[in-house]
């Protein structure tokens, strides 16, 4: 089997859309449930349960349901959803520190609490959650791409499937080279995300992203 640039692109797009859907749904869900603190805190147990389910086991389950392109992306989304939702929810729930007490005493407290405290605090945690989920996305890609290896969306199995099949068939060179590419993609995506986070923070809050 030969490694082609197309395999890398296909894997990248699966990863990208998987992370995008997972992180987007997580942020949306936390914002919707932000006002209901009981729901938010009780659902943390549920997230912890689902987060602990092994990805390989989940990939078999997803393959049972569907072996389409969408099921590959949804498996990645599934894995990326939990780190983001847990980090962001904890960001919103961590509220009764001294600053929160202080701004709650202000005459215009509700506006200040939401605009200058809860939203930035949740966003800091959201950005950290996404950074973690980027790595989890790469970890999940291979499991996702092994789903229904005969049914190839975009006519290609992607880098994950290529690595799997190469190593299975003793083509070690291609397999290890594929793994190195995964590592490089992981480093590049984390680096780009950190730069993008700083830019996004500056645009949204007109200040430096807190370290």
């Amino acid at each position: 089997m030969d490694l082609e640039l197309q395999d890398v692109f296909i894997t990248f797009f699966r990863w990208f859309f998987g992370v995008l859907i997972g992180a987007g749904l997580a942020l949306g869900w936390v914002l919707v449930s932000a006002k209901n603190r009981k729901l938010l805190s009780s659902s943390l147990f549920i997230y912890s349960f689902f987060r602990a389910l092994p990805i390989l086991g989940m990939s078999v389950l997803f393959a049972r349901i569907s072996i389409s392109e969408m099921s590959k992306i949804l498996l990645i989304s599934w894995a990326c959803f939990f780190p983001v939702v847990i980090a962001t929810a904890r960001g919103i729930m961590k509220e009764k520190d001294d600053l929160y007490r202080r701004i709650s005493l202000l005459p215009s407290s509700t506006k200040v609490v939401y605009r200058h405290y809860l939203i930035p605090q949740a966003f800091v945690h959201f950005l950290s959650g996404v950074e973690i989920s980027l790595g989890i996305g790469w970890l999940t890609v291979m499991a996702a791409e092994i789903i229904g290896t005969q049914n190839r969306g975009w006519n290609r199995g992607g880098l994950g499937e290529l690595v799997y099949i190469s190593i299975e068939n003793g083509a070690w060179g291609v397999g290890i080279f594929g793994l190195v590419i995964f590592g490089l993609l992981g480093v590049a995506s984390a680096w780009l995300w950190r730069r993008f986070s700083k830019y996004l923070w500056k645009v949204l809050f007109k200040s430096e992203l807190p370290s």
Partner: protein
Amino acid sequence: MSLIELTNYNLVIENTSLLENLNLSISPGETVCFTGPSGVGKSTLLRNLANAKAFSEGGLGITFTEHKCDFLGQTENIFPWYTARQSLTSLGINEQSLSKYNDLVEEFEIAALFDKNYSMLSGGEKQRISVFSSLCLEPDLILIDEPFSALDVPLKLKCIRGLKQISKDRELALLIVSHDLDIITYLSDYIWIAKQDKTVSVHKNDYICGIDTDEFLELRSSGIYKNIIAAISHR
């Protein structure tokens, strides 16, 4: 009329009684320093007062009259994601309000700090910005926990002087938790002393009666501290 009144108040945290049967009050313009051994419940009482006022939580035995109150704890009191200026603006302090306090900016030595990011501020700088922001909000009462604990002595004395001047000019009441003898002796009208037996005794501060600011600073900078304070003062 008191701004805060504690009537038979028991300070209980997670089923542990810290202070019992407190009967205390603070009147407008009064400065009270609350001191005592570490871990006796001073900061917890201050937080509970803030919680009672802000969230109506744990307020059994606490009575607040209608007034503006501010709280400065030991940790973050300004937004850690903003510059000091952005923090002040977010708290509702505009440039016009700031210009009223130019003297205080000088006294607290904070003019150069406004455009610094939070992460670039030292502990003492954060404390000075926090107290300054609180004074700009013009509350009737400020609850402060260890306000100048991270400052060197000469700067601390300047800040104490600034705070005392404003509290007298504006009839601002202060409840300050502190172990600092400069704050306790120079700033307070009354001293609350928490004891290990879970009681709090109230003392009128007669220790420096009649001594004005310059005399106090002179007194503080004399004796065995004279040389070291003189050395620190040469910035």
